[in-house]
């Protein structure tokens, strides 16, 4: 039985790109505070996290730090709890009836699950992109990108909304392709374009962290490459966590990799090892990690 490795990765590499002044913990999501317009990306820490669906424990005792302005990849075989863990970071896990969270998740030091914290406020700070692109079918491309503003009834003057939409679409590398048909419905785009639209929608509300649940698994290799290039560029402004089944993608597109494993069917998933990507893939510390990344199982 492999022992769990609880490793806290200190920042060994110097913080690469843009960093603003560090935000004080008081600005955390405790009272539904809005994040600063272009604040620095935040660190997420999980400590002793146990995730349940009813009485079934899906994830056991995860402790790790997600570094700001880096792409962290979560890899592991099917059913080992990577998506469940990802969804607990923006309080989407509790939307499933009967789902339960024990342990601690902090966003730059502030407990996300503390009493009195509004989950809606947490989700505005931690955005999510899903496996299948899901643009809103009743809305045009413009309205899809602006959905984060419209749905939260933020009274934004049109000119400002226009600039938010353009900035988000440019940030998602989609502006040139759709700038002439912003009023057309979002469902008329190809799969890769729809996924980039969903990314634009997520970054339009300016979250601090971007969670991506297998964003490329429904896309062809060309679209996949486009998304990977995009995440490499986005990490300068956001903290990005990506769940992926594709080891090659994790190897080439992430800075830090966390390997999850499951002991047997019906057992909870756990974190085996986390570390810089090239270390995980060339000289991992745990045998299970070595077996997985070399393709011996999973």
């Amino acid at each position, binding site marked *: 039985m492999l022992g769990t490795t609880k490793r806290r990765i200190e920042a060994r590499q110097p913080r690469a790109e843009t960093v603003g002044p560090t935000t004080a913990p008081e600005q955390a999501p405790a009272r539904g505070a809005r994040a600063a317009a272009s604040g620095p990306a935040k660190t997420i820490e999980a400590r002793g996290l146990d995730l349940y669906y009813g009485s079934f424990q899906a994830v056991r005792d995860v402790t790790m730090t997600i570094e700001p302005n880096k792409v962290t990849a979560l890899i592991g075989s099917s059913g080992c709890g990577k998506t469940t863990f990802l969804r607990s970071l*923006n309080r*989407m896990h509790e*939307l499933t*009836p009967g789902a339960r969270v024990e342990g601690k998740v902090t966003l730059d030091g502030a407990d996300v699950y503390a009493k009195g914290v509004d989950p*809606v*406020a*947490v*989700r*505005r*700070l931690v*955005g*999510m*992109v*899903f496996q*299948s692109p*899901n*643009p*809103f*079918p*009743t809305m045009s491309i413009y309205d899809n990108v602006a*959905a*984060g503003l*419209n*749905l*939260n*009834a933020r009274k934004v003057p049109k000119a400002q909304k226009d600039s938010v939409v353009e900035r988000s679409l440019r940030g998602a590398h989609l502006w040139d392709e759709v700038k002439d048909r912003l009023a057309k419905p979002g*469902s008329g785009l190809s799969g890769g374009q729809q996924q980039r639209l*969903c990314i634009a*929608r*997520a970054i339009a*509300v300016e979250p601090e962290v971007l969670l991506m649940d297998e964003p490329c698994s429904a896309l062809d290799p060309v679209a996949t490459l486009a998304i990977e290039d995009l995440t490499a560029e986005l990490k300068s402004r956001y903290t990005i966590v990506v769940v992926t089944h594709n080891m090659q993608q994790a190897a080439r597109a992430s800075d830090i990799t966390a390997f999850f494993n499951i002991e047997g069917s019906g057992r909870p998933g756990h974190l085996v090892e986390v570390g810089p990507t090239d270390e995980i893939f060339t000289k991992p510390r745990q045998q299970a990690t070595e077996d997985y990344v070399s393709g011996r199982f999973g």
Partner: protein
Amino acid sequence: MEGASELAVHARPQAAPLLSAGVGWRRRAVNTAMTVLIGGAFALAMIPLFSLLFEVAKRGIPGLSVEFFTSDARGVVGGGGAAHAIAGTLIITAVAAAISVPIGIMAAVYLNEYGTGRLRRGLTFFVDVMTGIPSIVAGLFAYALFELFLGPGIRLGVMGSVALSVLMVPIVIRSAEEVLKIVPDHLREAAHALGTPKWRIVTKVVLPTAFAGLVTGVMIAVARIVGETAPLLVTTGVVDSMNTDPFNGRMQNLAVYAYNEYRSPGVMKQAAYDHAWAAALTLIAIVMVLNVLARVIYRRYKTEIR
């Protein structure tokens, strides 16, 4: 292992004749027999429908006239029209829809989006019971309710609307619930992930996506109650003159009008019978128009959900 090589030898030469043999005569015979049977069953089911339409058209058309659509039956013997009845049907149905649609859709939203556990199961059970309420019971309930406040013998247009909405609400709830279930969960998830409060997800994502289906469901419920006679007999009464105020006095409607003309034809029997058939034809026409309208709205507003 010898069997394997035998199979390998036999597989190839026999494949070609097998494929070119075509469909055997026996299968073709069964195919034809089933086609005839199913086509015949369909025709059999259509016979009552077409014969009904034919009869009503045949007997109703002679009763149609400009006078039928423009004047009421006040003070006339044998002549007159059904304008008051047509207006009454439209007004009573509109008020019934105005009562039922908000209640029904909000209940469906609760059942589908928020409800859990015992309250939801209880509500679903009662909605199912309500779909089976006989229409006369709904009428008597509405009468008793108004009698409580306004004294015996009261007859109002709005009482008919209340009775009809008792019949309409469960239908609206059921069909709205089905439509809301079809809205895929990943849209709700996407809205959640943007940090949207749940009630706004319902009003700005779920309901707009389900809009076309909701309208269709409402139209179907309206078509169901537009020809109800029994509850209106005891609540809206019979009157010969035009009344467009549902809160004041009796109001005539097409179903009760047809019944009345047939039952008490008075001196000029044939004219009365003609009126009854013409009213029935008008009712069918209204239902048809509503159905067509429902289809048009559905096609125009439906959202392709992938």
